[in-house]
Structure formats: C-alpha cells, structure tokens
C-alpha cells in the first residue's frame, strides 16, 4: 500500500514537471477581480477576487501570448506580450456603459482594485523602460549649448515602452556636439535609438510626394 502511494506521488511529480516543460511563469495583475482572464482564447479558472490587489500566477508557453480581461458591461483589455522578455502583465477593464458605471460606483472594492492595478501598471512600465534603456539613469545631460533628455518615441503606439532621446539645441553645431555626447557619455549609437531634435525645423518632414 505504501509502495502504491509513493508510486502515485512520483507519477504525479513527473507529470507536473513534464507539464512545465517549455513553459514559464506569468504574473497577471488584473482589475476588476470579477473579470475573466483569457489566454490565447482559453479562460483561466480562478476564484473570484475581492482583495485590493488581484494577482493570478499561471504557467504559459514561452513566446508571444495574447491575454485578455473580459467582463460584462466593461471594456475588454487585451495585451500581447512576449514571455521571453517579461513575466508580468497588468490588465484593467473599465466600465463601457451605464450599467458598468453603476457597478463601479456601487462596489468600492472594484474602485480600489482598478486604482491599485493602474499603479502596478505604471511601476512595471518604468521597470521595463529602465531595463531596456539603462542609459536613462544618466539623463538629463547639460552641455555647452545643448540639453539631452528622453521622452516618448514617435512610434510609441506600436511599442508603448519605447523611448526617444531628446536634444534641445538652437544651432547645428550644438546638435552635432550633443550627438557626440550621446555616443561618448551614454555609449549609445544614433543608429539604435530615435533622436528627436527640439528647436529644429526639418524642411523634408512628411513631404515625400
């Protein structure tokens, strides 16, 4: 009997280990706690969450994953992530109609959950940006005739975590000096990151005919 029990434990252990092959752990912070989490079209089983912060950890396949948060009377929030680059995601659904607004107002815990999830989303975004652009810690740089900072890129809609370097300089020679400083002090090549030049009028901008 003891042998059978141990065998069952071993089989369960082997099965559990095999089921994790090719998978990685993903932490999903979501709000409201009553919404459904869907990963690549499959609803994830979980208990209803009434705590201030709702987090669900799941094992998912490595690579690109489409994750959605669905709830009646609320907007669906969908994120496409690469689990090789990040192991955490935040999903927030907001009211999409008067019934959703009423539910939101009548349940204080839902308001708290959405507020906390928004804070978590901001923190994750900041962490991702620091990891992707380690030179940010050295900015702003104030040189002779120029300032180097950073901000949103021109293509941030397709890549929300993307950053551009901003150069504030009034003369061409100062802009050239700022580019040299970016290479020498930040160790960044202009080939690798967008540089946006404030106070610079580009006569060729959006004028391809």
């Amino acid at each position: 009997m003891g042998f059978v029990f141990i065998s069952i434990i071993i089989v369960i252990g082997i099965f559990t280990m095999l089921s994790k092959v090719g998978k990685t752990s993903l932490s999903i912070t979501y709000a409201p706690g009553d919404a459904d989490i869907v990963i690549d079209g499959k609803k994830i089983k979980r208990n209803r969450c009434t705590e201030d912060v709702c987090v669900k950890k799941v094992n998912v396949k490595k690579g690109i994953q489409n994750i959605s948060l669905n709830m009646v009377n609320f907007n669906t929030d969908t994120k496409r992530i690469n689990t090789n680059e990040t192991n955490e995601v935040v999903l927030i659904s907001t009211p999409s109609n008067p019934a959703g607004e009423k539910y939101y107002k009548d349940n204080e815990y839902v308001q708290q959950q959405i507020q906390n999830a928004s804070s978590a989303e901001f923190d994750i975004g900041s962490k991702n940006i620091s990891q992707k652009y380690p030179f940010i810690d050295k900015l702003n740089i104030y040189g002779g005739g120029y300032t180097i900072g950073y901000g949103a890129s021109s293509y941030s809609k397709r890549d929300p975590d993307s950053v551009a370097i901003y150069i504030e300089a009034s003369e061409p020679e100062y802009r050239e000096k700022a580019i040299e400083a970016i290479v020498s002090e930040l160790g960044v090549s202009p080939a690798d990151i967008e540089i946006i030049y404030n106070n610079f009028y580009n006569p060729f901008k959006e004028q391809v005919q």
Partner: protein
Amino acid sequence: MRIINKKYILLIIITAFLALLTVFGISYLTSKTKITIELQNVSELRLYESKKGGDPSELQKQEPSVNINKSGEYNITKGYYIYEAQPVSNEYETVKGSFNTKEDKNLKIQPNYSNEKLKSLYSSEISAIQLALNTNYPNQMKDYKIDYGKLYIDGSWFAGYLIPNNGTDNLQVIMHKKGGVWEVKATPNITISKAQYPEIPYKVIESVNVRPF
C-alpha cells in the same frame, strides 16, 4: 557440461558484441543532423567545428571539418560551427559567420557585393538617385547637395548625406531601388535609427551613422 558452458559464453559474447554495435550505431546516427544549405554566388563553403560562441577570426588556425561547394542537404556532426564562404568572383565579398546545428537547420549564404563593385555601381546610379530626390523634394533639394553617399548589400540600398548650402544641419538620407526606381525609405533627418525604420537593413543604418564630419 563443458560444451554447454562454451555455448553460453559464445552466446554472451555475441550478444555483447551486438549490443555494443547497436549502441555505437545509435550514437553515430544521433550525433549527426541534417542541415539544408543554400549557396548563391559562393564557390566554396568551409565549416569549422568550434566551441560555443566561437570567433570567426579563429578560422585560419585550423583545417575545415567540411567543405561544401553546392546547395543541398548535408548530414553533419551536431555542434557549433564557424564558416567561411568564398565568393565566385571578386565582385562579391567573403562571408564569415557561425551557426549552431541545434538552432539552425537552414543556412543561406548570399554574399553582398564587394566594396569595389559597389563603388563602381554608385558612379552609374548617382544621377538616378539625384533625380529621385529632386522629384520627391523639388523645393528642398535646391538648397542641398548629396555627399558621402554609398551603395550597400546588392547595390539596391543607398545612404548618404544632404549637405545644405545655407549653413543649416547636415541630413542623412536612405533610399532603396525597387523595380528599377529609387524610393526614399527614411525621411531625411539629422539622424536615422533602426528604431524608427526596422525594415531598413541595420548595416545601412549603422554605416550612415558613422558621421564623416
């Protein structure tokens, strides 16, 4: 009794021999893997077995493990390789690289034109490039001239600078020849990056960002 013992011993020896043969056979078969190699404008491909992360500059210090001179499927020993591809003529450049049979089952090698070939092509293309820029930017190009221009890869990519005659900023420009027509691929700007234009070959963007002034 002695005859029976001898028979058993013989049986054990034969079984052991067959088992060893099987083990070595399986080991041999599993040590090889099939790689599809496609060569264009390559006269000879030399493969050198290497440790993980091998440096192509180490090539000259050893004999090649495999020599290949035409496209096809090849069974080669699993592992890491450094390779050197000799072009069919000096119009193309020698290609060096590395691959891992575990991750790369298809190897396509197509050398770019050599610098000399690209230079000679550029002199015949510059007029067409100038015309395309004048057509796309008729007002702007009155104040700029093309300089520090080069062709890249197969001669269908151009990158260079637009130098102003009024003391304003020098601008980078990148163009691509498609269907016989030169098209602007990146709006002329002080700097152009792969972040904004991921579809432009990185080699072109990297080179034009080595500022010549």
